[in-house]
């Protein structure tokens, strides 16, 4: 079911930044000929773009919610890589975005539970 969520500025900024990273990753993956992964990442970026474009009030579908969670998992990998390379500031920045994406997922789950229960 679609759930309408009210997003904070921080959450929308996190979506915007995550979409930018995922698009870049998608481009890079396409260049090394991993088409499926490239298309999947592009799909996650498109979902995040839609969320940003809908403004403060956003209808999130079940698949859209999963896309947001998958995006946060991919960001975890980028965060870990930056951290391993001692690029701490970037890692911290991405960590904050991961938390905001997870906030969206948790709020979606809460609302879905109330709607179903």
């Amino acid at each position, binding site marked *: 079911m679609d759930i309408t969520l009210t997003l904070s500025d921080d959450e929308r900024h996190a979506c915007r930044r995550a979409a930018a990273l995922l698009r870049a990753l998608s481009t890079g993956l396409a260049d090394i000929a991993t088409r499926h992964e490239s298309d999947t990442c592009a799909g996650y970026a498109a979902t995040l773009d839609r969320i940003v474009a809908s403004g403060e009030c956003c209808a999130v579908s079940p698949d859209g919610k999963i896309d947001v969670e998958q995006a946060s998992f991919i960001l975890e990998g980028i965060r870990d890589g930056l*951290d391993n390379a001692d690029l701490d500031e970037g890692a911290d920045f991405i960590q904050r975005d991961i938390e905001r994406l997870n*906030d969206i*997922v*948790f*709020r979606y789950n809460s609302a879905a*539970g109330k*709607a*179903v229960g």
Partner: protein
Amino acid sequence: MCGPPRKNPGAAATAALAQRLIRDHPDAMILALGDNAYNSGRVDEYREHYEPTWGHPDLLGRTWSCPGNHDYRTAAAAPYFAYFGEARAGTPRRSYYSLPLAGAGWHLVSLNSEIEQDAHSTQLRWLRADLAERRFAPVLAIWHRPRWGSGAHRDSKKPRWLLNELYEARAEVVLNGHAHHYERFAPQRPDQIPDPAGVRQFIVGTGGRRLHGRTKDTPNSEYARFDQFGLLKLTLRPDAYRWEFIAVDDRVLDTGLQPVNQREREWISL
């Protein structure tokens, strides 16, 4: 923990280990820490992957659970709640619960890290009231997503509210999953300051899903294994608890005994 064998190579072996353990401990209960049927907690995934391993009647009949993020890839995790039933998992609307462990003299709280848990959330208000009314003093809490972790996913800030509440209530132990490794932390405060009377966190994500490696070092982590499927056996007594992390080949890899914390005793004697 259970799913297609290629990505879940340990599920059958850990279920077999559980079967061996309950032969010696017929009153034992099993706590499943979420993400029980990969990849989405669908009805068919529970039927095809969980049922043949951890869903055996000897195990399922003594299992209590908390939901994981993969369970929520279905609408409000409805198949998960239906599979375990209201008494063992709650409901989509009320996805947290508690029960007295009368034989051990402990109080079990099962929480949901996949929904709102902030200061003003319904779940946190419920937890505060539940802890205030508990009959037995030592508290064991379970939820899926760990506050701290040295493996995949690392730390998660969100459960800090739950941890604050449990620390204030002098809880003893938190069990988490989500990350696919085993890790034991020293008792600590919610702000990661070591405290012998704090809450001890275990990550036991070793039930079957492909294991992940270490990604960082985390303060107060006392022991971690990233290479072994296995189970955590907890023996609860009113005055102490013993832990044993047991690999699927029956080796005990980590064990210890901890008295229930001193603050608790002081609190009871007031």
